[in-house]
């Protein structure tokens, strides 16, 4: 009888022990407490073009803090997405899933500070995105999120942590409204201020409204004009319409096209300039020296963003470099870093991250391990799956349009802008890459679950 009804003090003691367990954890998990394996922080930025980072493009002077951080990082100059909407999130979380992290005794952040993307199932991604980044004040949102992140980082020191964040900051900046306070405005470069000033006198042209303390870059209205979105049914459809080649072609014919495009690019650069400071806070781990000494940071993107280089604005529509290429920098504490020309994609990056977690890849063997993951051929495709491409050894790129039957071949070393089609003059290389494409194309229905998850375009 006494066994069935334990004393009240015993119940209280057990409850107290359970309550205290999370605080006692570092004591009994001695191995974890002395675990010197690095933390891994992955910061991915949506739609960030590598050429908008000074570390990639010295002519670009508007990312000084990220550039400073990049000293000592490994800089991958040929990171290309499998799709111009590919998101490392899906590949990473499917690959580096919770069980994998648990097996290697990594703590994983499952909570999602607002403004950060952790794992969002593909079916929910659109809705989840729209909820916050279309409408809310992006700047404030991120500041709050960073504060949450800081708290989280400092609270997880017993075990090494793996944290993935995907920032939607650069996503379609030209129609994602951004409120700017006077302080924000003051932080801009003279060039940005000059440009914004120039358009103050012509608010209709770009619909820049200037209330007393806020500059509202309401680009949605701008785009409605530029792309003839006169009827209400298009109000929610800008993302698709922006990248519509037919509408883009009409836009190109308008007299103000050059100025319009300049403004669109400026909006993007302006946003990058603002993002620089925010990103630097995270990349420098808020100045926490203990974390700095033992955290590997991967700063990357998901895909690029086109500015009409091949007749289209935005992303998802084609497979030219401006849409597929993304920045990728890996920084180990105390390492010298270097430039890596080898072509990589998200799948390879996932394997590198897995290797870091498993302890198989470290600062000493990083370059060698990356070489071992080399793939001479990388396949990519657009979201509509009607244009496919094979990239060969960072030098050759073959593009096949399944609708028009048009094939293109470019030498990326001599023609990085993909302007001279070499199909006729280099038929052997074109056919070699076409053959690879024939042998390796896959039907989505036949992909494994993991592969399907990594292909979120469909």
């Amino acid at each position, binding site marked *: 009888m006494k066994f069935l009804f334990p004393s009240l003090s015993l119940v209280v003691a057990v409850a107290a022990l359970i309550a205290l367990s999370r605080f006692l954890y570092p004591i009994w998990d001695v191995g974890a407490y002395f675990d010197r394996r690095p933390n891994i922080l992955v910061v991915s930025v949506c739609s960030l073009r590598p050429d908008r980072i000074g570390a990639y493009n010295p002519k670009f002077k508007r990312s000084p803090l990220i550039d400073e951080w990049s000293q000592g990082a490994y800089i991958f100059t040929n990171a290309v997405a499998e799709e111009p*909407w590919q998101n490392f999130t899906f590949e990473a979380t499917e690959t580096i899933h919770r069980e994998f992290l648990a097996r290697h005794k990594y703590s994983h952040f499952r909570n999602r500070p607002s403004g950060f993307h952790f794992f969002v199932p593909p079916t929910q991604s*659109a*809705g989840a*995105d*729209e909820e916050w980044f279309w409408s809310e004040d992006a700047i404030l949102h991120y500041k709050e999120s960073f504060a949450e992140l800081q708290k989280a980082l400092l609270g997880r020191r017993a075990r090494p942590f793996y944290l993935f964040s995907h920032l939607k900051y650069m996503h379609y900046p030209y129609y994602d409204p951004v409120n700017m306070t006077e302080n924000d405005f003051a932080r801009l470069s003279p060039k940005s201020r000059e440009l914004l000033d120039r358009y103050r006198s012509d608010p209709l042209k770009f619909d820049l409204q200037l209330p007393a303390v806020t500059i509202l870059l309401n680009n949605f209205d701008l785009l409605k004009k530029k792309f003839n979105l006169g009827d209400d*049914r*298009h109000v*929610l*459809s*800008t*993302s*698709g*319409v922006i*990248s*519509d080649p037919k509408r883009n072609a009409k836009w190109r014919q308008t007299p103000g096209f050059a100025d319009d495009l300049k403004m669109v690019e400026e909006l993007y650069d302006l946003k990058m300039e603002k993002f620089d400071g925010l990103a630097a806070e995270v990349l420098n781990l808020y100045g926490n020296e203990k974390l700095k000494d033992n955290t590997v940071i991967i700063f990357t993107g998901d895909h690029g963003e086109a500015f009409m280089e091949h007749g289209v604005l935005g992303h*998802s529509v084609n497979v030219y470099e401006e849409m597929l290429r993304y920045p990728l920098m890996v920084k180990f504490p105390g390492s010298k870093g270097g430039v890596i020309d080898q072509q990589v994609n998200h799948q390879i990056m996932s394997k590198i991250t897995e290797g870091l977690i498993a302890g198989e890849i470290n600062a000493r063997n990083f370059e060698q391990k990356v070489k071992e993951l080399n793939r001479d051929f990388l396949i990519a495709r657009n*979201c*509509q*799956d*009607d244009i496919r491409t094979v990239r060969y050894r960072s030098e050759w790129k073959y593009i096949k349009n*399944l*609708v*028009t*039957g048009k094939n293109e071949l470019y030498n990326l070393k001599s023609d990085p802008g993909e302007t001279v089609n070499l199909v006729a003059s280099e*038929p*052997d290389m074109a*056919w*070699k890459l*076409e*053959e690879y494409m*024939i*042998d*390796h*194309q*896959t*039907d989505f229905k*036949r992909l494994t679950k993991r592969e399907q998850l990594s292909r*979120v*375009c*469909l």
Partner: protein
Amino acid sequence: MILRNFILSWAISISVSAFASPLQEALREYGVTVSSENFKVLKDQKISGNKIQRLIEVEGRRNERIEIKIVSPVEAAAARAMMDSERTVLKKLYAAPQTPYMGDIAQAIGSCPSKYGPLKKEMTFLAGKQDVLIGAATPERTFGACTSDQAKYRGAYVSYYHPATKTVWSWRISAPWTDGKPLGSEWLSDILAQFKNEISVP
């Protein structure tokens, strides 16, 4: 050694030739006969490596055009994926535009009016029954025309795999759409009937 083998394996012979031979002559080696002499060969290219691709483009007296692509050897799975993806792409051209940001553009613009296709028909072709995809084509003979000012041609696509020779055949056929009649498949029957093959293709 690996590098040498790799280079040797790619010691490919490339021959690209364009010549105006009769269509019958071009298709003879594949066992396909053509009952009409009305086709003018616009292009006949052969590219060889580990695989061989033959591209033949012909034009008939009524401005109908046929593009024949023959690729071999291709393993069955790759061939299936190749044909499926081409069909899927063509079908998608008549569907609502898709973007990753679903729910916006698709709902806003909607799909192509059904009178422009795609129609899926089972037709007799080369001693077998084949699934043929039919749709309106643009003045450049590209599939996916969805408006009256764009729909200048009727287009058809048919592909099949011949396992014995590991060969993938794909045919794109287009003919002027000037009679004002519905898209249909009658126009195509006459064209397809001109090609015969001793071997039944699955």
